[in-house]
């Protein structure tokens, strides 16, 4: 019988070097204490409301709904949060927790740069040191976010190993944490890694579904029929799903990045193409070869360009509670442009994967059905890359 701590079915666990074990045990103890601490929760709620700008809007996308002619579409506007993405929810929670634990330094990995920017922001706010690890490839794709992090006072370390993308940034942040634990908290950006991270990050992100539920009941007097969100590691998706998991009438749909297609090698759709494995501290599904070597994955979206998926998503997939679909680069780019032109909202290319599925699914649904699409971040950071995708060079 394997260790049952931090398990979601067979997934999860704590597959990390001995050097880090006391650090995750200390984190778990602190979290178990503070999650029920009234003062901690008040402080966090205040940061959510006054600093991050919560609650985020639940916006009825009327033009899009009418244009597609099917289900009624609501957008959960996490892009309107301070720093422009859902990442701030988790970071404010973890930074506050780290501060209570007496840590003075935050380290983080980042893909698209949104989590790095959020961590640098929280570190600036709370007077903590901050170092962000970012794949060198991603520092090029997301140069503006690198500048933002530096502006906020963080050091950005370009990671040159492996594929020089998100998975390598995670590996490097884990390596850094083993070398400096006593004053440093690893502010992991998604619902992945060893226990207790998948649970902590989910809890801080679950504010998204808590709000959707309240807002939907206020606007429509009922629950939505489907909630759609993009999935890399899966933090905005689990945040969007969490308070609906017990409501079996609500379909939960995660959109993975298919890259150039799930039948090509240039994909990051883990649930569609991966198999069960152990990596980055957790048992879950991973894109890998027959000998367990982690596959170099690809997506136009730096934030979804990860060869694994959070253990709770792997479990929701196993038990059939959530559905996972794969969206190609082309579909995501079309959706990026579609939402910009139709609603005047430029979504992050990550979120555009969720929009793309809504565009496909809504017309086939009755008009009395309601879907919620989480816009996990805003797309300003992606404009140069999308322009390049369309063959236009932009000079700033």
């Amino acid at each position: 019988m394997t260790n049952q701590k931090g398990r979601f079915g067979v997934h999860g666990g704590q597959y990390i070097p001995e050097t880090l074990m006391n650090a995750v045990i200390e984190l778990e103890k602190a979290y178990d204490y503070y999650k029920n601490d009234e003062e901690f929760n008040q402080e966090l709620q205040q940061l959510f409301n006054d600093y991050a700008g919560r609650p985020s809007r639940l916006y009825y996308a009327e033009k899009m709904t009418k244009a597609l002619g099917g289900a009624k579409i609501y957008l959960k506007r996490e892009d309107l949060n301070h720093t422009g993405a859902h990442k701030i929810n988790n970071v404010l929670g973890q930074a506050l927790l780290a501060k209570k634990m007496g840590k003075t330094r935050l380290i983080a990995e980042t893909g698209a740069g949104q989590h790095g920017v959020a961590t640098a922001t929280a570190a600036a706010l709370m007077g903590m040191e901050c170092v962000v690890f970012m794949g060198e490839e991603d520092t090029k794709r997301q140069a503006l976010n690198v500048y933002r992090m530096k502006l906020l006072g963080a050091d950005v370390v370009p990671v040159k190993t492996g594929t020089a993308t998100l998975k390598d940034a995670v590996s490097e942040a884990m390596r850094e944490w083993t070398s400096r634990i006593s004053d440093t908290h690893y502010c992991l950006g998604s619902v992945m890694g060893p226990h207790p991270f998948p649970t902590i990050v989910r809890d801080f992100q679950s504010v998204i579904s808590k709000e959707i539920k309240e807002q939907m009941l206020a606007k429509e007097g009922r629950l939505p029929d489907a909630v759609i969100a993009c999935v890399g590691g899966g933090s905005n998706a689990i945040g969007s799903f969490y308070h609906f998991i017990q409501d079996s009438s609500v379909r939960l749909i995660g959109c993975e990045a298919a890259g150039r297609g799930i039948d090509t090698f240039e994909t990051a759709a883990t649930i569609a193409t991966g198999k069960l494995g152990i990596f980055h501290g957790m048992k879950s599904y991973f894109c890998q070869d027959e000998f367990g070597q982690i596959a170099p994955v690809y997506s136009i979206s730096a934030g979804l360009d990860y060869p694994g998926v959070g253990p709770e998503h792997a479990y929701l997939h196993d038990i059939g509670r959530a559905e996972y679909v794969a969206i190609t680069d082309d579909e995501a780019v079309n959706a990026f442009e579609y939402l910009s032109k139709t609603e005047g909202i430029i979504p992050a290319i990550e979120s555009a994967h969720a929009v793309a599925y809504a565009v496909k699914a809504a017309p086939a649904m009755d008009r009395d059905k309601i879907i919620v699409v989480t816009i996990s971040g805003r797309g300003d950071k992606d404009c140069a890359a999308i322009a390049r995708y369309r063959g236009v060079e932009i000079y700033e």
Partner: protein
Amino acid sequence: MSNIQNAFKNGKAFIPFITCGDPDLDTTAAAVRAAVENGADLIELGIPFSDPTAEGPVIQAANIRALSGGVNTEKIFAFVRELRKDVKVPLVFMTYANVVYSYNAEKFIAACREIGIDGLVIPDIPFEEKEEFLPLCRKYGVDLISFIAPTSENRIAMIAKEAEGFLYVVSSLGVTGTRSEITTDLESIMRIIRANTDIPCAVGFGISTPEQAERMAAVSDGAIVGSAIIKLLAQYGTQAPSHIGEYVRTMKQAVRN
């Protein structure tokens, strides 16, 4: 008793780490034989992994060289079977959990037994997760090696009590790689270990010079050296084995007493 304990019968042990297939398996075979001829007591054979999160830059690079040279788990099993015809010292595999898991853990561990591998060193399997592989290791008589780190503190006794084969004592915080100084209070750690187990303890991470090896072996039962050997492979490639032999001889002399 585990065959691994034979490695600690010739005075303090010297344990080199070599990544299989860096740059090719013929070189690995020659390097292992050169190390054994020059006094290596146990060889830690690395099965390369694409994303070795416990390794510093030197061993990361060796993993990449080996994988791009086309080595894989099957080829390494065949290589060890051949090596075992004349190499008698205890051999352990060092790799990551996913390499074992994805192969099918039972098939992997049964193969270890069959080709003559005495133990498994898996840095991403801590005490809490050892049930993942331990029942199979017991079934096939392969020791699952446990780690003690400078941060283990209140965990040392718990880990030591259940340890098998030998205990891998991590000398410093951080990942593998050579260090100019090792400041961990190993004496205190060793006292707690000794109070809880009789199995041998070898210290690894950061050791490269004979002076460091002597100092580490003085408080334990042996020294493990990886990055310093991998550097010779990076520098000399297929010509590295004779340099490795020379290096091992110096290091074994340093730890012997």
